[in-house]
Structure formats: C-alpha cells, structure tokens
C-alpha cells in the first residue's frame, strides 16, 4: 500500500484524468490517491474515472480554485469491476485492421461442391486464428454465407461473439432474394464497403 497525491491544478482538461490514470496504474498495491484540481469540471471527470475503475471516491472543495478528489485505488491483483473493453485506448493486438472479404459462397474456382466445402472450412479455420479479423464483409454470392441455411452460420456467429464485425452487402441480399434471411451480422452499403476496405491494413480474400 502506498498513498499518493497528484497536483493537477493549472492543468487543462483532460490532463487531470490522464495524470490520475497514470498514478493509479503505478499504485500496483493499491492505496489512497488524492488528486488536486482547480475546477469543478475536473472533479466531475475524476469522479467518472473513479466510477469507471470501481474506486470509491469523495470530493471536497478546500479553497477557492482548489478541490481534492480522494479515491481508494484497489490493488492491481484485485478483480477490476470496470466494464469490459478496459483500456480501449490500447490497440487490441488481435484486430489490427484485418478485413476478410467473402466474395462468393464458394472458395476458389472449380467444382462447386468442393468450393462450398472449402469455404465452410475457411470460415471455421478463421475462428481458430490467434489474430481474428476486425471485419468480415460478405458480398455477391458471399451473401448466402450469412443467411439462414448456410453451414457457415455457426462459425460466423462465434466470430461475431468475439467482437468481429460481420457485414453483408444489402444490394446483394436484395438481388438474391435473401433480405429476410439474414441470420448473422449487419447490412452494409457500397460506401461503407469502400471506406472499410480503404481503412483496412490488410484484406484477406479466400
């Protein structure tokens, strides 16, 4: 246990929170963290920060332009009661802009039955990768893969549950009469498809 005081008076938003966060992270054994600030808004932001981290916090006005927010920082070993996606600011190593484009309901050119089996195997194999894609885009006959009756549904749902964004081209769903059959993920349009492809750091196409 150690106690610390961070003097964030005179610092512009969002620095009080940033400095409090740094200090709290360094207090690996827990302790009492006191943050001094010079305005009421910084107090409210610090209270949000404390609530987010699950720290108990109390604020007091000590003088004109001097407020103290005192929070009890839990030891790092304690379970964090904060919501998931803690540290959203740190890049998630599994999803660095990889985009998978499923452009047909078969994989490769040749026998259709084989092509379907390969596609199913491809999507299954995706679920087993250490680095999951950020996005899976399904277009043209790839739209069948996200619709009722597809043997890829279960794996795509599993990927979606892992946080992968699964999107199917709306025009394609319309064209193949699948509009009411979509069973996993959302619907997208060409502008979104283009933007996502442009923003992707790698595009994988089976």
């Amino acid at each position, binding site marked *: 246990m150690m106690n610390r005081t961070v003097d964030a008076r005179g610092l*512009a*938003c*969002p*620095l009080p*929170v*940033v400095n409090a*966060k740094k200090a709290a992270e360094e207090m690996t054994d827990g302790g009492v963290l006191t943050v001094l600030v010079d305005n009421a*808004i910084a107090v*409210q*932001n*610090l*209270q*949000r*920060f*404390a*609530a*987010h981290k699950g720290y108990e916090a109390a604020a007091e006005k000590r003088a004109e332009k001097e407020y103290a927010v005192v929070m009890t920082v839990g030891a790092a070993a304690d379970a964090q009661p904060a*919501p998931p*996606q803690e540290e*959203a*600011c740190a*890049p998630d190593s599994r999803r660095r*802009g990889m985009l998978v484009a499923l452009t047909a309901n078969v994989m490769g050119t040749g026998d259709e039955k084989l092509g379907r089996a390969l596609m199913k195997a491809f999507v299954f194999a995706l679920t087993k990768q250490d680095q999951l894609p950020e996005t899976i885009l399904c277009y043209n006959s790839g739209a069948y893969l996200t619709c009722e009756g597809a043997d890829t549904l279960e794996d795509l749902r599993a990927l979606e549950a892992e946080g992968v964004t699964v999107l199917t081209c709306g025009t394609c769903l319309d064209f193949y009469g699948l509009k009411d059959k979509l069973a996993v993920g959302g619907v997208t*349009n060409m*502008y*979104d498809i283009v*933007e996502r492809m442009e*923003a992707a750091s790698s595009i994988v196409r089976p």
Partner: protein
Amino acid sequence: METEVRLTKLASCAGCGAKLGAGTLAQMLEGFRAHSDPRLIVGYDKSDDASVYVINEDTALIQTTDFFPPIVDDPYLYGRIAAVNALSDIYAMGGEPRLALNILCVAEGMADETVREILRGGYDAAYEAGAIITGGHTIRGAEPIYGLAVSGFAHPDRVLTNSGAKPGDALILTKPLGVGIMTTAAKADMLEGEALTRIHRQMATLNKAARDIMIRYPVNSCTDVTGFALLGHSYEMAQGSGCSIHLTVGSIPYHEEALELASMGLVPEGAYRNRAYAQAAVQVCGDIPLAMQDILYDPQTSGGLLIALPQEAAQDCLREIRAACPGAGIVGYVTKKQEHDIYLE
C-alpha cells in the same frame, strides 16, 4: 524548433468546446438597442444558426461566422475543419455559401508554412463548397484561431430555420456524435489510429451533400449540431418550434470509442456547460448511462445536420443521405408541446 509545436497544445479549449455557453451569451445580450427591420426574417432572437435578410422576392442573404482554436495538430486539416464548420451554418439554413472572409489569429511559435497550410485547408473547403474567399483579417494573439465569416443565399420561402419542426416529424442526424470527447482524448494521446482518422474525415466533410438532398424533401426545420451538442440544439429546435422532441437513444448514431472515453472521465468542459444549459428541459426516461448522456451533451465540431421532416418522407430521405453520409440515422421524433421540451427514451 517552430515546426515541432503541436497546434492543439497552443489551444486551451478544443474546437466547438471553446464556445461560450448558450445561456451566458443570451444573458449578456439582454437589453441592447437594435433596429428592427421586417426584412430581417431570422435574427439573434431566434437562436438560429445564421441571420437571414430578404433582399428581394427571390433572394435572401444568409450570414454567419464561426472560428475556433486548433482541434487537430495537422494545420491543413485544422483549416479545413474550421472552414467546413463555418460553412455548415449556411447549409443548416438550406442555403448555398457564396462568399467568405478569413478570420485568422497567428500565435507565437507558428511557422509561416503552418499558417499557409491552415489557409490552404480553408480555401480547399470553400472551393469544394462553391464559395469564394474574398479576403479577411489576420492578427497576432496568444492562441491560434481560424474560421470564416460566410455569406450565402437561399430563396426566402425556402429558408430552413430551427423553429419550424412540426408534430409528426422524424428527426434525422447526418453525422455520428462523440467527436468532442474523442478530440479531448486525442489531445492526451489516448485516441489514435483508425478512430482518429474516422473523426477527422467526418469533421472535414461538408454538410453540402446532406443539404442538397434535404432540400428536395418537405423539410420543416433544420439546424446543425455543433457546440451546443445534440441536446442543446434539439432544445433550441423544440423551444423555437413550440414542440417537444423525443430522442430515441438506442437509435442515435455515435462513435463507440466515445462511450468508453466518456466513462473514463474524458469529457470536455463544453459538455458540462451544455448540460447546465439544457438539463432542466430534458426528461430522462429509463436508465440511460451517464456516459451516453455525456455523448448527447458533447460539443460537436463540424457536426451533422439535424433535419425535421414528416415521418412519411423520412425513410426515403435518410436512404439518400446515407449514400453520402453512411453514419446518418433517425434520432427521434417531434410531438406537440408536452411538459418537457426534450425526452430521452
């Protein structure tokens, strides 16, 4: 090393977060002498985006200005965003910008090339909007400032104010919320990569496409969502229109990152000012997390248009707008005046 000064480090507030609170301003202007003129169909009293002066039966002049300290470090992008934001008020009135004047303040430590890039961003935005920058005024000061004073035109009968919403209207918002929170986080290097690029692109996008589509629909009212946030601008629309606005929180488009950042306490000062301004008019129905409320009070630099039009037309209009602004969505609806101005559902 002049070039290594980060632009946003020279600014004490970010973008539209620098705006003076709406309540403060109204108080200060109380009781001043002013001529009245029947040709001035939208003036300060309406709390609207721009003033509108009827020149003749076919033409109304729309005037506005907007400027702010750096919200991003890239000077070209800053210039562009500031200009796009200033031009937006003309689009929000349903008009087309034609002439603009630069408003520029150069701070100590800014290289000539930086200033040139800011201006180039502004000129590019104006060019894209079809407007001409005819001059301006530049001073030296403590903080960099850039923006435009813009004049535009519209047919007097087709001017869209923020006070024309009617019961039965749906509300379309053309850009997702959360950029104030996200730019605050970016100032502390707590947001980068794709999310930052995404909001930069959004803020640098003119509301021209949305305006060009909107004017082909029977729109009753329009404003742009900027410094006073979705709730502040909705409040003004509700008050001006004598209606109540119901915002359906589940359908409001926002950047996901903003929710996490807000819950960590990275909420800009402007959001608190907006809350203080509009809170009394807002009835929160159900359990809406504080971080989500922060997003609704978050000042939006160069935000989207908030368009009120009859439900029947809203879906078609939204579909067209989405082709240009994929993040657009229906955020609520308008009813006759109820107990509160705004309901969050």
